[in-house]
């Protein structure tokens, strides 16, 4: 759908040093990421890492971090795992109830899609 978009200039696996899985404890798409403190203007971080820290000053779900960075979700997860390991972000599990979708939501999604 983005035929004109030349895509990222850096190969995605370059951003993660070839890694496909994040370090540390696993976390899912709706876990909430929050930047710790305000000490993130560190010169040795790549722009993507800095962008995550800037975005997550407001607590943000993992899926939204990926959307805002326009990066694939698993690349984003590797970056988030690195930042957590460095103590620069926290990643909190969502409440289990947030996962459940009831019938009303299906109907709302359907209605909204039709009127797009």
């Amino acid at each position, binding site marked *: *759908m983005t*035929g004109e978009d030349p*895509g990222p200039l850096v*190969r*995605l696996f370059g951003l993660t040093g070839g890694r*496909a*899985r994040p370090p540390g404890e696993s976390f*899912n*798409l*709706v876990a909430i990421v929050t930047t710790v403190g305000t000490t993130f203007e560190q010169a040795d971080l790549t722009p993507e890492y800095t962008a995550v820290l800037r975005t997550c000053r407001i607590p943000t779900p993992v*899926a*939204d971090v*990926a*959307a805002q960075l*326009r*990066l*694939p*979700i*698993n*690349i984003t997860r590797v970056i988030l795992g690195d930042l957590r390991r460095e103590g620069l972000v926290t990643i909190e599990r969502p409440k289990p109830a947030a*996962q*459940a*979708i009831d*019938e009303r*939501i*299906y*109907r*709302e*999604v*359907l209605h*909204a*899609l*039709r009127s*797009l």
Partner: protein
Amino acid sequence: MTDASAGIDDLGLIPRKTTTTVAMDFGRVSLDSELILYLFGTPGQHRFWFMWDDLVRGAIGAVVLVDTRRLADSFPAVDYFEEAKLPFVIGLNGWEGQYPHNEEEVRDALTLAPHIPIVRTDARQRESVKSTLISLVEHALTMRVSVPGRRG
């Protein structure tokens, strides 16, 4: 295509493919002020399957985008979603509006149950994608209403 995938991604029947397999496409559609639809696209190749288990959890459903020139590549994806009991529809991807195989041929070839929708689509066209997603949500809702407790 990257050099690294030479010999891994079989493009024998797809001579015009020039783009690489990106590990995951991502979309975020704001439906209204409180409702956000997330779309995750992931390649069918087996080496990306480890991503799928996580994506199906809590999902409404899946679209299996089928290229009829290499139908056999879709068998594992169909099996996967049947096994995961996640509602899915088959999106027959057309190229330049050409659909070399009709729906019933594809249903037979994939041994799909009669209730699983097959829709023609062009993944590059907004309206086409939208109508495919509508088919999927309708199907997921039907499954949910008609077979309580079952999601496939």
